[in-house]
């Protein structure tokens, strides 16, 4: 197993290098000057030229790439063009918010999707099943920016149950548990927005998986042995049906770090997604590169984690 993990991790290195080359090239191809605002003709040109040299933008793109790669490999993510601050600390400021949002969304997703999918699978083609399936399609096809605005309108503007934006009450002075509750209070709407879409697909997934397991020979055998439905469901059907979810979980872990660009922006939730959108609009190359690389790495590791978990939950799978 250890050997397998090492091999996989080593295999990621060429993959990441390839990704970084593609990303870097794409960023270079997009037109737009990251340093000039182009909004006020009294901008100091001398200063912009000085910055260009400082940031190495006067060098050949290939040279720029190697410089970047060298720094990245040593853990130096560079300096943001926009804020002139360390990219690492900009990301550090926000990663916690994104993880908090992502984990909350995952919890909501799992706690709704799994029971709903099982219920649906247990009474296939019933009214309940059709309702769940119908709602899943609606949820899946709902654009998140629209859902976000709708939730703000309904639950913040009309009902006043949740705040419209942010991660916490400004200048509240909350501490300890109060602070945690305040944070949760703020995260519910954006997390729910994120969760609706994944809940929809998860529900469909669980339903299909459970129905599949129920049609298997071992389930029929279990019933034939005279076991109760409850026991069959718990010990035979669900155990097998929920294994594929583990894969999804691994993949989600990767996507989670990418942040939720649209949702975070609508709710002014300062996470990596909001940072990413800001940096693209400002052509803040170092931030774009760092965030993209983090997301890519996270996705690759997410896949690895999924594979490892798979081996644990499914004894048939063994890695040499």
């Amino acid at each position: 197993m250890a050997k397998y993990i090492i091999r996989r991790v080593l295999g990621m290195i060429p993959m990441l290098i390839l990704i970084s080359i593609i990303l870097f090239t794409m960023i270079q191809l997009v037109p737009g000057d990251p340093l000039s605002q182009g909004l006020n003709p009294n901008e100091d040109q001398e200063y912009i030229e000085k910055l260009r040299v400082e940031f190495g933008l006067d060098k050949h793109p290939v040279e720029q790439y190697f410089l970047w790669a060298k720094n990245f490999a040593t853990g130096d993510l560079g300096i943001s063009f926009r804020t002139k601050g360390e990219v690492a600390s900009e990301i550090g400021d926000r990663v916690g918010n994104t993880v908090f949002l992502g984990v909350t969304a995952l919890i909501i997703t799992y706690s709704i999707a799994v029971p709903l999918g099982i219920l649906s699978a247990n009474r296939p083609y019933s009214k309940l099943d059709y309702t769940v399936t119908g709602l899943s399609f609606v949820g899946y096809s709902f654009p998140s920016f629209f859902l976000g605005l709708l939730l703000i309108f309904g639950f913040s503007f009309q009902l006043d149950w949740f705040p419209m934006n942010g991660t916490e009450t400004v200048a509240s002075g909350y501490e300890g548990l109060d602070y945690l509750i305040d944070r949760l209070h703020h995260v519910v709407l954006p997390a729910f927005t994120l969760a609706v879409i994944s809940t929809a697909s998860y529900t469909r997934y669980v339903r299909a998986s459970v129905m599949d397991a129920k049609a298997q020979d071992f389930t029929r055998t279990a019933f034939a042995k005279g076991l109760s439905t409850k026991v069959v469901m718990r010990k035979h059907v669900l155990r097998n049906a929920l294994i594929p979810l583990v894969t999804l979980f691994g993949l989600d872990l990767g996507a989670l770090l990418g942040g939720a660009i649209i949702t975070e922006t609508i709710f002014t939730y300062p996470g990596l997604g909001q940072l990413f959108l800001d940096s693209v609009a400002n052509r803040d190359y170092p931030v774009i590169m760092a965030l993209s690389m983090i997301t890519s790495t996270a996705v690759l590791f997410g896949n690895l984690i999924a594979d490892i978990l798979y081996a644990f939950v499914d004894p048939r799978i063994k890695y040499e």
Partner: protein
Amino acid sequence: MNKRKIGALSLAVVMGLSVFATACGSKSSEAKKKQITVAMTSTFAGTFNPVLYEDQYDAYVLNFTFDSLWAQDEKVETTIPVLAESWKETPNKDGATIKLKKDLKWHDGKPLTIDDVIFTWEFIANKDYQGPRFDYVESIKGARAMKDGKATKLEGVKKVDDQTVEVTFEKPDARDISTKLWSIPIPKHIWESKLGSIKNAVNDPATTKKVVGSGPFKVKDFKAGQYVLVEKFKEHHKQAKLDNIVLKVVQPDVAIAALQKGEIDMLASVPMAEVDKVKTFSNVEIKETPDFGYQYLGFKTKNPVVSDKNLRRAIAYAINRQALVDGLMGGRATLLSQAIAPVSYYYDQKLDASYIYSADKAKETLAAAGYKDVNGDGFVEDKAGKPLVVNLDYPVGNPVREKSAPLIKADIEKAGIKVNLRKPRDFKSHSEFVERDDTDVHMWLMGWGTDTDPDQSGAYKSDAPFNYSRWGAGTDSDKLIDAQKFDPKALASKEGRKELLSQWSKLFQDESPVVFLYSMNQIDAKSKRVLNAQFDWHGYVEHPAFTEWDVKE
């Protein structure tokens, strides 16, 4: 624990917490403090240092936390003393004496003296200074030498006493004192020890987290991407009536609802499309003022397609600008005929009479210059008889400007000039295409935000990088732009300077390297809860009298 239990437990936890959270939702924060929330529609870069910041949203924070020597009144004249008690320029404008108020204090309680002011100028002129403000000290005698590392002090600065300084300029300069002289000091006692590391000043805690300013409010808390909380500075010479101001980032789509709801108390730049809706809110006051920025249609004058000034003049006649203002902006914009803001003293109304919309006049101008429709397709050919197609580029991002592009194309085509309206690009891409003089760029739409002083050097000097039209060489333009700054006539009186600027504007109109389209009004909204908020060309949010703001109990 088996899976089902875990599932049930996590579900219970989520449900429980959600209910709990909802129950706590109505709990009001301890209140009693007079606090208002100002909406920001973009995130802060977080550089809270007046000599280093570059982001417009950081500027809003600095406005509350750092005082300037002076402020401009409702006529855009520098007359309001803030840190300064008085100032006087020499008669021929080659120097000035500035006297500070007594007993001024920094946010950390240390006294603010003229040494801080001098230090700030030298900080900016220092060869290691990395920020965009050098233009504001360049006029001081010896600033260039200091920047080049040939001097360690500013030759033209003489301290008289702890409150007073005498400044000598490089040469007599007719520009407004607020434009030619940097006026917002930073604390010497904080930055002096850091001179060796000016390069890292942007990341210094004194810029980001532990900001020591001089304004009526001080930075209390900064949450990146979310808000800045400023709190009343109790030792300030002018006591603010509010205790706290929160500058909160709110997504533009949500800001209008938040305003109606009372979650935000002020919003700068209400989008045109929302103005009528906001007017119906009973809790909100909304006002508008002509702005310093303007929108224009530019021509690449070196590009053979539009190098003939008669073609450019014809296009200037062809565009029905009033229809754009009425149709797209509900009249909430001002037509302008020159690069100077209509609110400025230097704006010459007499020039407004030229280029009144007339498709006939456009056709006449074209015909007289030799542009004829040879093949009978309804569009003129160029002077050599080849088909003439003029490209028009525009960026996305400003909804009014986006909508104006096809209308402008239609207007120009009505006058008989075929226009190829190209696909819009995002702003950064668009400006790069324009900046690098791409040969396919003939005409483009863009806007400039300008300073309060009418100096045109940055945008229209023939060698200025931002002179995207690349026009001016071989004309009197450069001479006139210099004259309105340095000519004895300009130095002698404002009238004299205005006259020289008008001469330049007239030349500009004749050559038409740019068609000035309109200046969109700045529209600000504030909640009725906020009292004593004055409004002029500054808008509400940036009005210098913000210490008067109060709230209803």
